[in-house]
């Protein structure tokens, strides 16, 4: 897995340009004070969704902190390859706890919507800035979602393969040899 390539690909796809990244860093200090309240609203929202509650029971406080750290990092950290690697890891952790992939899409949509509210409140008087910030945040959330979806896809395939091999008793080595035998055939 080439994270440098994946990071570049997701940024390009979501049109997260260097200018947008710089703008996000610039507005970070304005937004940071609102992020704890958004996190609270996010968990209140999740706890009202029956299917989500099972994933949260007994760990809401620690998840809130984890979540706030991630949300803050969007406006304080460089969205570099380490960041992409971290999000890839987050996707894998979610797959490990069997969190449905669509939960992440719903979560991103909810958070995006909350941030739009804050952004309009902060920059509503300057329509040019407002447009630029809204576009930057749209790209930012899309980029996060796409990275986590890619990670999900890969982790799910890995997890399903591991389960299949476990059930059939086929070793990883044998599976690799099977793949090699058929890959070779496909290219000759």
């Amino acid at each position, binding site marked *: 897995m080439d994270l440098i390539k994946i990071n570049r690909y997701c940024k390009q796809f979501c049109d997260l340009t260097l200018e947008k990244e710089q703008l996000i860093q610039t507005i970070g200090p304005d937004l940071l004070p609102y992020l704890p309240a958004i996190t609270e609203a996010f968990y209140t929202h999740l706890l009202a969704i029956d299917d989500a509650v099972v994933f949260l029971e007994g760990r809401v406080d620690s998840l809130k902190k984890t979540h706030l750290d991630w949300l803050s990092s969007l406006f304080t950290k460089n969205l570099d390859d380490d960041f992409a690697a971290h999000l890839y890891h987050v996707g894998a952790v979610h797959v490990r706890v069997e969190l449905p992939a669509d939960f992440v899409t719903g979560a991103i949509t909810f958070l995006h919507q909350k941030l739009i509210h804050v952004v309009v409140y902060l920059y509503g008087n300057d329509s040019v800035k407002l447009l630029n910030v809204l576009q930057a945040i749209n790209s930012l959330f899309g980029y996060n979602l796409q990275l986590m979806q890619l990670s999900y896809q890969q982790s799910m395939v890995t997890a399903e393969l591991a389960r299949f091999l476990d*059930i*059939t*008793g*086929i*070793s990883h*080595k044998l599976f690799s*040899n*099977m793949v090699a*035998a058929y890959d070779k055939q496909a290219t000759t």
Partner: protein
Amino acid sequence: MRSEMLSSILSDLNGSSADIEASAVLSTDGLMIASMLPSGMDEDRVGAMSAAMLSLGDRTSEELARGALEQVLIKGDHGYILMTHAGKDAVITVLAKPNARLGLIFLDVRRAAENIAKII
């Protein structure tokens, strides 16, 4: 030396019955160790498929309470494929004609498997 001995076992096996068309020894990881296969048959595929079938056979036999696996037998329009362990690290695969007398082949293959197990 080892590969010559294995080839000679396979050669004897193929010669033991006119019904046996081909045979091969492979590792349980699916890698070919020695083979007497028809030209055009891909050794890597035969190795990988045979080891996978045997692995699945092991599990199925265990799961359906049939005890330790002795062999896996597949029959197609054009004949039989017989797979059996040759010791714990190797597999022997034999291809036989559609009307083959299996009883005799089972015996010959078991003997060959024992001999292979001693070498590997």
